[in-house]
């Protein structure tokens, strides 16, 4: 216990005496974490956008005119048992024609002579907003097609499908950049710490010559790495938060009629905590990576 206090005191003394090096280290970590946070922020809000848009995604299951009541019940229970499905609405032939007319807009006059029986009745299936990929929706659609009593399954808003494909692709790229950025964070921070350890090679040598064990030499460096890394991460997150506060009023994404707007949201507090801890860990590993080769004497 008293040793921890002693080593911490050494670390803080050193930080105080070498404000330039400490400042540069914290600054570098902060900038890298700022970047990481902004990327995470963009990714997180795009994900939320996707979630909200998914709520507008629905399937239309057209029923055969000859479908029996029992078949319809079976279809319903298949749908209800799927976790992809949110709510189900039955649309009869008359309603269907109304909707179709509305959708045709100016060309609705075309259907003036069409009888109310022409369109099939259908089930409009709203999808649950959480965790379904376009893949699992397609799987459901595929499964339904072979069901007796079903004529056809269609997406309610076809463009959304393409949009989600694009989103999936974007997410892949964002993950790639994110991974690269995490890797860069590790490298840059450990490089910075390496430089500052390197500048103290002499100090390490002297301590060892005076009878210090490896651990005695290392401990303050680790504490310093952890403190500077954690501090840098916190500063970086703070910076991201500031940017967020500035950007929020400027960015609202209209989701289309009736769905309202999507406002930006900051990262959940848990990820913030994890990032800060990440900074500390990065500081520690940066120190680890740099210390090894200087201890031989």
């Amino acid at each position, binding site marked *: 216990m008293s040793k921890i206090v002693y080593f911490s005191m050494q670390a803080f003394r050193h930080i105080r005496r070498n404000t330039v090096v400490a400042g540069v280290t914290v600054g570098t970590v902060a900038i890298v974490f700022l970047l990481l946070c902004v990327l995470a922020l963009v990714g997180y809000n795009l994900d939320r956008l996707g979630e909200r848009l998914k709520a507008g995604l629905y399937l239309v299951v057209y029923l055969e005119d000859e479908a029996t009541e029992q078949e319809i019940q079976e279809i319903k229970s298949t749908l209800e048992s799927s976790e992809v499905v949110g709510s189900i609405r039955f649309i009869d032939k008359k309603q269907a024609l109304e909707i179709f007319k509305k959708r045709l807009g100016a060309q609705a006059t075309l259907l003036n002579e069409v009888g109310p029986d022409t369109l099939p009745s259908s089930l409009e299936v709203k999808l649950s907003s959480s965790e379904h990929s376009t893949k699992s929706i397609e799987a459901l659609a595929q499964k339904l097609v072979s069901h007796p009593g079903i004529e056809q399954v269609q997406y309610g808003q076809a463009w959304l499908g393409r949009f989600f494909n694009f989103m999936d692709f974007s997410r892949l790229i964002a993950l790639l950049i994110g991974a690269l950025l995490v890797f860069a964070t590790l490298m840059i921070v450990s490089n910075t710490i390496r430089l500052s350890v390197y500048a103290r090679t002499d100090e390490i040598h002297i301590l060892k*010559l005076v*009878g210090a064990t*490896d651990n005695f030499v290392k401990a303050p460096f680790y504490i310093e790495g952890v403190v500077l890394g954690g501090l840098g991460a916190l500063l970086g997150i703070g910076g991201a938060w500031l940017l967020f506060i500035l950007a929020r009023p400027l960015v609202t994404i209209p989701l289309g009629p009736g769905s309202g707007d999507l406002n930006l949201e900051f990262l959940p507090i848990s990820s913030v905590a994890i990032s800060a801890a990440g900074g500390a860990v990065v500081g520690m590993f940066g120190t680890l990576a740099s210390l090894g080769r200087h201890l031989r004497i």
Partner: protein
Amino acid sequence: MIQMYHVYMSYGSDSPGLIDVSLRIEKAEFAFITGPSGAGKTSLLRVIMLAERSQNGQILLFGKNVANIKEKERTLFRRHMGVVFQDFKLLPSRTVEQNVAISLEVLGKGRGEIRKKVGEVLELVGLEHRAHRLPPTLSGGEQQRVAIARAIVNDPQILMADEPTGNLDQALSEEIGVLLNRINARGSTVVVATHDTAWIQRTQHRVIHLEKGRVVSGGMPLG
């Protein structure tokens, strides 16, 4: 205490360091090492403090062979030695007090004891008024005395001093000589590398003379 048999140490093909060095320094002995610049005095001390490995020969410290010693043990040996380095080797970012305290901190001593002993030893070398200064703000002689204080504060069994009076005036040099004599009288083995012929002549201690890496005279105890 310190025994070397046919020790060879080289820094590379063009720089022999030590050649066939045999010597014995007894417990509680006081020995000078002399010889011209570049003779190998510092090299000899570095071998004894286990900062440099010999390529050949046998070295015994405290009766123990240190040929294939492990990192951990090396540290333990060093804790029984005090060294005044020719270039001082003070930590520039710690105060005088903290620099001296390191020798005790590595031994895990308590804060109270450390404060007391550091105060005493700084008084011995006449630097109590410099306790809170950083080494780069001291004069050359003051830095040298800090190095001496750090080397003696933990009552080492072997005290090695490399040119410890090179930056001190006559009066202070004599004081330091007296100080080392006193430490020697309390049972520590003292080895001093120096060019200060006046000091050597003032005392009756053995003189080990090096030249070009070889022991020319004084390798074995007088008795």
